[in-house]
């Protein structure tokens, strides 16, 4: 499991961990039932404090991404990927609508917007 922590990021470290583990799960890199490192091991590997990984794992558990069994460790929970995908799509639609509204206000054409999106997407 690869996790990259940036100390200079504005995003708190525990959020960096939760969002990266979420992505790994959504991208299918971490499969349902897969073991993930214990929070104490992860803290040691990342050279951060235990309370930080503890908080990250607690949030992941609350969001239903992982579950922990005392004495056994933490595992990737069953994910209803279809539902998550639909939710994400809905969020994307909303965000794009806002982009379109903004574009119209300054008279940006669809072609220009598509070009911009293309550049950003291929970044």
């Amino acid at each position, binding site marked *: 499991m690869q996790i990259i922590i940036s*100390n200079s990021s504005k995003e*708190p470290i*525990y959020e960096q961990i939760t969002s990266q583990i979420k992505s790994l799960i959504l991208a299918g890199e971490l499969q349902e039932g897969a073991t993930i490192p*214990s929070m*104490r*091991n992860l*803290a*040691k590997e990342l*050279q*951060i*404090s*235990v*309370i*930080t990984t503890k*908080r990250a794992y607690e949030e992941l558990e609350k969001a239903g991404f992982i579950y922990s069994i005392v004495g056994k460790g933490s595992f990737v929970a069953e994910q209803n990927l279809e539902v998550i995908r639909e939710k994400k799509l809905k969020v994307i639609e909303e965000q794009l609508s806002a982009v379109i509204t903004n574009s119209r206000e300054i008279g940006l054409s669809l072609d220009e917007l598509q070009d911009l999106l293309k550049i950003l997407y291929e970044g």
Partner: protein
Amino acid sequence: MENVVEFTNVTKKFKDFSVKNIDLQVKQGFVTGFIGANGAGKSTSIKMMMNLLRPDVGEIKLFGLDYKKHEKAIKERIGFVYDGNVFFEGLNMKDIKRIVAPAYKHWDDKVFYQYIEKFELPLNKAIKTFSKGMQMKASLAIALSHHAELIIMDEPTAGLDPIFRRELLGILQELMIDGNRTIFFSTHITTDLDRIADYIAFMQSGELVFNQSIHDVAENYAIVKGRLDLLDRDTEKAFIHVHRATTGFEALTDNTKAVQNIFGNSVAIDRASLEDIMYHLKGGIHHV
């Protein structure tokens, strides 16, 4: 959550200095960093934790036990590392082990020799020939060889170079994989704590200012910068300490949310480092 150390209303007076009304809890399974300027009362508190000093008032419990009745049982479960060598400096590690090991019921020679090997310590050389870093490793090897549940360290990183400090933090992090271990260590080098501490206990002028998780410290404390004309009697109440310069003010708050409500976007709010907090509180704690 269980507290391994519990100070209740502890006071100790000396002729020219005192530690007052300390209520301190150290949580099991975590690293608590004990910070404060030199002379803030850290060593006095650690000495009371080790029963080298007795409080005038108040109660100190370790593992829920009292020193009056359970001194030996408590000390069996503590590993200690002090600033500077407390072992007989003319002796080598083998002889020191011969003196220290029989004191503990749970001394483990195997673990001891593992650490000797890991830390690359010579067994037959007098401790006084060791470098500062090696002396620290020697103390640590002894502190870790009797399956201690609580490791108390007084300024273990003082006088060590940055590379060795990193190494030490790595060793401590490895110890924390075992969830029953608790580490309490004092330091005035606050950057040591960024990587490893779960809780921060902060002393200032003989008082405990706070003992919070690093998340709470990060959420509550902030450095606020803005134009001088924003300050007046009411708005200043949001700050613990304000430093004025001709170019504007820099202030410390322990209530970031309140500051956001009062000033909105008219000020810059930055994370307060432990050093920022120590600096702004150096004059003592009093709301402006």
